[in-house]
Each structure stands twice: as C-alpha cells, then as structure tokens.
C-alpha cells in the first residue's frame, strides 16, 4: 500500500477543528412562551458555553468522517504483482483477453479472469503518453472497444468484464488475433507502432497458442493473467469429467444403455491415488453412484448401465460429487440425452467392391464411420447395386434409409433414377462420390435434376493445359460458412490431401449449388444442393484411394460425419446429439421454433436458409429442448470442451519488442472503500443529530 498524495496527510491536523468547535460551540436554546415565568428561578448561573465533551459519540463520528476523507484524498493504492513488458514509446495497443472457460481456474483465491484486471491495469498504467488502446476478448459476445487515447474506459470495461464469472466458451487466445488486428487496422495506419497485448493463462490454448507476431510489424506480447512469464503461479490440482458417452446395451435389455466416460486429474504428476464419487442422474434424480480411483495427472474410466424407463429422450448427467473447493468449477458435470432408438440409417452402395479390403470402394468410408466418436448413432450397411435396384423396385423403396451413399456406382436405370429422385424429394439424403464407373452423360441424363452441378468429364490432374507441372491437386482452405462445415475451425486436417483425378463439372448458377471444399485449382471438391425436402452432396473425386488420398487424411472422419449429419433431414439431428459449448446447432425447420435453454430461457428462432434454423446461444452446458410447429420435438445437450479443462502449463516465450521497454506493475486505487465508509459515517451522523435535536 502506498500513497499517491502523502502531503494530504497534513490535513489530519484539521481534526482539531471539530474538537474546538465542539468545545467552543454555544448551544442554541429552544424558546418557550410561558405564562408562569414568575415561578421560575435558576439556582445556579446557566452556562451555555461547553467546557467538556458532552456528545462523545457524535464527536467521534465527525472526527472519523473527517479522517476518512483526508485518507481518501491521499489516494492510497496497492501495487499488483503482475510485471508486464510494455513498449517504451507511444504506440497503438489492443488488449486481448482470454475469455475461455479455463480462465475460471482459481489461483490464490482469485480466478485467472479476475486477475486479468490486474494485468490489464498494469499495461494501461505503463502505456506511454500519446498511446491509444483498444479492447477485445476471445468471446465474440464480449466487450469490444475501438482504439482511443482514453485508457480509463478500457480500464472500466476490463474491471466490469473481470468481475463476471468465466463462461463455458472454448476459444484459443490465438483466435482473437484477427479481431485485434482488425481493431488496429480500423484505427488507421499511422506513424505509431502497433502491439497486441494478449492476457491469458499458461495453457496450450491460452498463451501457448500465441504466435510471436499477429502480422508483420505487429508483435504479440503474451501477458500472464496471474504471476509473470518468469514466475508463473503454481497450478492447483483439479478434477474434470473428460468425456461421457452412451451406447445401447441390447444384450441386457432393449432399453438398456451403457454410459461410460473418463475422469481426468489435472495437476502435478506426483501424489497419491485419489478416490472420487461419481453420480449418474436421470431426469435430475440420482440413479446410480460409483467410486473410482484416479491416479495423479492421469485418467480413470467408469461405466454405468441403466435401463431407460420413459419413452423418448431422457435427460441424464454424470457428475463428480463431493468435490469441494475444486479450483476450476464447472467441468465436473456432463449432460447428455439417452434415447433408445436414435440412429441414422446409412446405406452404402458399393459400385466397386473388392475382396481386398483396401481396394473396396466403401472400405474407408465404412471404417471411418465405425471409428466415429460421435454420440450420434450410425447404422451403416452396404448394398450391392442390384440390391439397391431390388429395394427401390420393391415395396419398401428404401423407406428406412436416411442417407444413401452412391460410391462409384454406375448410373442407375431410368426407373431406379426416378425412384431415387422421388425418395430424395421425400427427404432422403444422397451422397454421390465419383470414380471410374461414373459416366457423366448417363448421370446427367438420369440423375441430372438431383446433381448439384452436371458432370462434365473426369480429369487426370496435370494433363490440363497449363497444369503439366503438378501431378496432384491439394484441397484449398475449406469454406467454413457452408452449412456442412459450420462451427468447425481451421483447415480440418485436409490441406495435405493429394488428388490425382477429379471430375470436372458444368458451371450452372441456376442450380444454387454451394461448394464446401475446393481444390487449389478452384475446381469444386465437395458441393451440395437441396432437392425439395432432401439434400444431395457430390464429391468430385473417389471416396477410396483410387483417385485421392482423402480417406487417409485425419479430417476425413469428421468430414464424413458432417456430410452424413447434414444429409440426414429425416432424423433432424437426433435426440441424443451432443455439441460443445459455443458450437451452433442446426435444426431443420421451415417455420419458427422455440428453444428452451437449461437456465429456463425460451428463445424463438426463425428459419434461415435451406429450411433450417441456427441456434448459436449454446454457451450454457446442459439439456436443451426444441419445440417445432411441424415435426416432433428435438433435444440436444451441450457439454464443455474438455480441452478447456486442461490446465497443463506450457512454456511461453517472452515478448520480443524492439526498442525501449517498460516493466510495469498495476496500481489499484483503494480509496473508494474509504469514500463509501465516509458516506456511511455521514449518514449515521445525520441520523444521530436529527434524533438529538427532535423535540419531545
């Protein structure tokens, strides 16, 4: 604690004033007109000037009030322990704050989010005169202040933001850099240098995710929310529920399910095994309880078996019970919906079967779907082309199939194509992947109305005019605005894809095709199109390794899941869908819907494009219920991203700032409580004075 204006302490001499006034003050008598005055006679001389302290309480109140005001005028401040390197010349700066869930970690009794206030105050105090500063958080819904020369507005915004609890959002600190750059660009290119001060924790998704520069000539200065880069704070141990999933247990009962998952113990690797209690809740009522031992810095698995009693989706949750004072509260519980029958029936039509599994057309797709970790249930089975024809000519007409995949299948006969068109129009999804057996003319003739774009011809990469050098095509950065890829981030693990043959398409703007993936040449790789109530996706290369190594890429599994989920309009999302906090939920509908959130709010959403509504307000983990005017109700659960529970510290490189640097620490004003206390004393003094002065 230090005083910014210590000379004001001389004002304490003024405390003598009320004392003197109290002693020298002359009491004003109350006047009374009294007819029997002749009978009044004082025995002693009446002394109206006080010679001793009469009202000690009142005097003490007044003295205390004056002393508090004087102390407040000395402007006492406390110095924080966050030391920050700040550019020593006037510059444009953006404070980028980590708003992710991991910032809720309690260190020394305060959350990292609350400690961000100290770090931000240190930077703002140390900014040289003439600097401009703006504010941004990684939370898209968080505060955003454009650059200005007034650091107080940033200080107030940070203080308000830091006083709120950390949400469930999962954002890397790096993801805020484009926004910070945009703020700097918006302020205009000037002679001043530009710096981004990023405040976060020492995790891989926090300070560990930061590059050294946000753009050329725009360095990124990592700032520890608590401690400093050279002296990071100790990370306390905490528990998190890493994952929860369920699967049918029909060998036990048609309605039985297995609910399994893992508990992770974060923190130092040393220490004893710790026993914890897990509770399974069904419809908010405890249904089962288990105890497991969790090793230090390790994982422990658990499994419950439960028989669903109620029809329809059942709200369930698993939580770590009796876990008091966990430093990172909130990740001890995971919610999910249990549904006995909730699956997408996918029929794979193998146009190029092979006895060698690696050469089979649908081997990679079937393997990817079987390895899918999604909570969605996929019932996949393969069909030979003749079986497909038989089914379509039969009575059921693929009535139980939600998504049909035509993998390198020859163009079907006219009646089969018509039946396919009819089924897609009725809501079935259709995914067409090409190959050697696909003939453009036949496909265009029979399935042309379904295709996103008409097929032109297959092309061997490198044989086109001007493209003789490269023998393979790579995949360009994905179109993340496409409904199939909405909510995903990054390059999806597909950029290294090498494709040797692709199918060229006929441009046709009237078909409203949307491209989700393109090759680097610009040719579409994956495109889609709605067809009446159904949807169609077209992959312009093979889904096996004949034309491309796409199936070998790590992004192939989530891509296949996404494509199938988007094509599935018959089962709109599934009752047991689980998404991560912050991810959008796509809900097929052609009329407004209402979504009931776990905290009891009801949000009404109009449908957007392609007959679906996009619900983005998913930052509250829990059970969500969707009511649609047409169609059955939907449910989905939101869980925290387990990556945000990982508080493992990563090394963070110190900032590289050219030029002078200032090491600063925040000074926190502490006079506000004094002023509040003085106001309270003033109120008490007034009440006491009124009470004494009131007539009987």
């Amino acid at each position, binding site marked *: 604690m230090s005083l910014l204006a210590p000379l004001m302490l001389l004002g304490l001499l003024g405390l003598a004033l009320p004392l003197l006034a109290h002693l020298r003050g002359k*009491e*004003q*008598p*109350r*006047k*009374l*007109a*009294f*007819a*029997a*005055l*002749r*009978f*009044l*006679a*004082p*025995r*002693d001389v*009446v002394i*109206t000037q006080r010679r001793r302290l009469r009202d000690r309480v009142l005097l003490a109140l007044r003295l205390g009030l004056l002393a508090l005001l004087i102390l407040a005028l000395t402007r006492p401040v406390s110095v924080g322990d966050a030391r920050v390197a700040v550019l020593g010349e006037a510059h444009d700066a953006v404070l980028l704050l980590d708003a992710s869930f991991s910032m809720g970690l309690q260190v020394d009794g305060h959350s990292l989010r609350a400690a961000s206030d100290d770090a931000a105050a240190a930077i703002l105090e140390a900014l040289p005169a003439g600097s401009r500063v703006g504010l941004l958080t990684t939370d898209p819904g968080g505060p955003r202040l454009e650059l200005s020369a007034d650091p107080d507005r940033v200080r107030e915004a940070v203080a308000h933001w830091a006083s709120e609890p950390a949400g469930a959002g999962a954002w890397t600190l790096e993801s805020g850099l484009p926004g910070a750059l945009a703020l700097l660009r918006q302020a205009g290119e000037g002679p001043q240098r530009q710096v981004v001060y990023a405040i976060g924790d020492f995790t891989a998704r926090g300070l560990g995710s930061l590059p050294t520069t946000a753009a050329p000539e725009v360095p990124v200065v990592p700032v520890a929310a608590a401690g400093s880069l050279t002296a990071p704070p100790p990370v306390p141990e905490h528990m998190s529920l890493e994952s929860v999933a369920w699967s049918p247990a029909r060998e036990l009962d048609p309605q039985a399910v297995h609910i399994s998952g893992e508990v992770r113990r974060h923190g130092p690797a040393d220490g004893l095994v710790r026993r914890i209690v897990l509770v399974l809740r069904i419809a908010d009522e405890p249904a089962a309880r288990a105890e497991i031992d969790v090793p230090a810095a390790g994982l422990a698995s658990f499994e419950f078996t439960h028989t669903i009693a109620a029809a329809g989706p059942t709200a369930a949750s698993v939580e770590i019970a009796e876990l008091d004072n966990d430093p990172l509260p909130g990740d001890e519980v995971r919610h999910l919906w249990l549904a006995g029958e909730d699956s997408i029936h996918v029929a794979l039509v193998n146009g190029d079967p092979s006895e060698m599994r690696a050469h089979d057309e649908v081997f990679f797709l079937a393997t990817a779907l079987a390895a899918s970790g999604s909570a969605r249930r996929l019932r996949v089975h393969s069909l030979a082309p003749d079986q497909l024809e038989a089914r379509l000519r039969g009575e059921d007409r693929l009535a139980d199939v939600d998504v049909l995949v035509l993998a390198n299948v020859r163009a079907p006969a006219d009646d089969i194509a018509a039946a396919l068109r009819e089924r897609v129009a009725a809501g079935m999804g259709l995914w067409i992947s090409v190959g050697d057996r696909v003939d453009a003319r036949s496909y265009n003739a029979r399935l042309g109305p379904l295709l996103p774009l008409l097929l032109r011809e297959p092309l061997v990469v490198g044989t086109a005019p001007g493209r003789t050098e490269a023998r393979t095509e790579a995949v360009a950065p994905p179109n993340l605005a496409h409904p199939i890829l909405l909510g995903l981030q990054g390059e999806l693990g597909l950029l290294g894809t090498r494709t040797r043959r692709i199918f060229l398409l006929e441009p046709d703007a009237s078909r409203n095709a949307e491209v989700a993936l393109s090759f680097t040449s610009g040719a579409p790789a994956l495109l889609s199109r709605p067809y009446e109530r159904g949807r169609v996706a077209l992959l312009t290369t093979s889904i096996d390794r004949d034309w491309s190594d796409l199936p070998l890429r790590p992004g192939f599994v989530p891509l296949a899941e996404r494509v199938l989920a988007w094509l599935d309009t018959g089962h709109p999302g599934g009752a047991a869908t689980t998404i991560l906090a912050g991810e959008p939920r796509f809900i097929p509908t052609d009329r407004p819907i209402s979504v009931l959130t776990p905290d009891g709010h009801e949000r009404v959403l109009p449908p957007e494009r392609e007959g679906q509504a996009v619900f983005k307000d998913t930052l509250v983990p829990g059970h969500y219920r969707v009511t649609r005017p047409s169609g059955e109700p939907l449910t989905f659960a939101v869980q925290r991203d387990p990556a945000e529970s990982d508080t493992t510290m990563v090394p963070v490189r110190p900032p590289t700032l050219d030029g002078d640097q200032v090491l600063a620490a925040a000074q926190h004003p502490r006079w506000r409580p004094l002023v509040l206390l003085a106001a309270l004393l003033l109120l008490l003094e007034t009440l006491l004075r009124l009470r004494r002065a009131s*007539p*009987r």
Partner: protein
Amino acid sequence: MSQDPAQALAAVVPPELRDLLRGRQLVLARPVGGPHAGRHTGVRAGLGDQFRGHRPYSPGDDPRRIDWRAVARRDRLVLRQTDAEDALSLVLLVDAGGGMSYGTGSSNKLRHASALAGALAHLALRQGDSLGFGLGRAGELELAQLRPRAGASRLAALAHALTREPTGICPWPDLVAAIAPSLPRRSLVLLLSDLLDPDPNKPDADELLLRNLAALRSRGHDVVLVQVLHRDELEFPWTERGMLRFEDPRGAREPLEGHAPGLRADYLERLHAHLAGLDRGCADAGLHLHRSVSDEPLTGALLALLARLAGHPEPAPLTLEARR
C-alpha cells in the same frame, strides 16, 4: 361580528358545549337582588312560589294573602310571605392578556375560558338575566360593556371581545377596583383568568387583587374566581437535556434560560405555594375559587362550574399532588 345570538355563540362555544346547554339553567345558591323580576330567588319578599314566612297583618295589606290556617293556630291575623324572584346581574371579567395565549388547539387557555364565559352568558341571557363584561388587555381596561343588560346583543359583543388576539397584561387589581362603583346590587362577578401573575408591574399584585375582591364581596356581590390553567403549567413536563429559553408571553418579565431538569423542582414548589396562598386568600375573603385545566373536556368543566355556582360541595383542590 354577527348580532345573531346563535352565530355569536358559535364563535366561542364549541358544538358539544352548545348541545349541553339545551334545557339547562343557571341556578345560584345565594339569593340575588336585582331590580327586575327574574327566575332567581331574591333577597326580599315578593311574588314568588317559595314560602318565606308570616308577618302580622297591617291595615292596607291585601286580605287575599292572609293565611287562615296560621290565623287559627295563632289567634291573630298573619300574612303568608314568599320570596321574590329577581333577575341576576352577571358580570364577567375576562383576562385577555398574553398569558392566556398558552396552549394549542382546544387546550388554549383563552379559548377554554371564552367557552366557559360564552356558555354562562348564554344561559343567563336566555333566562332573562342581565349581562355585563369587562376585559383587561395590553395593560388597558375595556369596560364599555360593563353595565349589565339583557338582550342578545350583549352576547354578540362578548363573543366579539373574546375572539380578539390576547396580548400584553391584564391589570387585575386595577380592573377589579375600576368596576366596583359601577356594579348593580348583588351582582355575580365572575373572573376568568390563570391568576398566575395578576400584574407583573406591581410586586404586591396578589394581595392587592384579593383585597379588592374582598371589598367587592363586602358590598354584597357574589365573587367567583375561575382559574384556567394549562397542564404544562401544573406539571412542568420538560425533561430534555437541552437548553430552554422561557419567555413571558405578556412581554412584562425578562426571559430566563436554563435546563428543564434543574428548574422543575423549584418551579413546582413555588407554584404550589402560590396556589395554596390563593386558596387561603379566597377562603378568608369569602370568595369562590374554581379551577379548570384547559385540556380537560369543556362539557365536564362547565358542569363542574355550574354545580359550583348552584352550591354543590367544592371538589378536591386542584394541586400537583392531586394531578399526580
């Protein structure tokens, strides 16, 4: 001020007291001696209903008044005599000095005294008695209406005089001395005042007033003192620790400052002595003293006063001990 008796009465007498006056009469214990016939028993024989005695027959007496039964018993002619019934000459003397201004609302002393005076005047005038009144205000004597007369105009004049703002002192010894020569025979003189400080300018005002009143009494007038006091004057209720400044509402005495707890005991002692001295002085001089506290109901106060005038026993003396 209106000349209408009802309106004049309403100016000083509150409604509950006016209701009480209906059908009620002013009855006196002692005989009166007015020049006009009235409803009160006179001191001489006359044409009344009340038997007075017998006297021997003299030639010229009306033979119809011979009491033949008494003649048979006494064997000589005697006449039957009855008391005359005369009208009363009521003279009200009201203290309109500033000392009577104490109290708020219905507990105001002058208001209390005015209500009693108005009620008595109404009763007297209604039964044919004569009314005269005088006031002392601002050191002056107002005696224009002193000569008793019957008629409603007197009531209106009284109401007009009583509704004026009290101020200054009422010089009681001078007032009593001034009216003495002008009073008709055997008048009923009724004083309404707090009698706390009869004349601040005269050190022996208490004794002088009693002497003057005794002189009135010796002339055959009936004198009744109605002492109207406020409860604060009787109990000195202030207990606060703060300083009080007592000022004389008449402006005749110097203000005094002090703390109430230190003044109270002395004050009560002196007041008690003054009231006791007044009691003794009235008893010695044959005066009737009636006390009334201004915060008590007017109806009760009037009934007590009427009872006192009718000769009912004197109530317990109004002292500090009795109030406690």
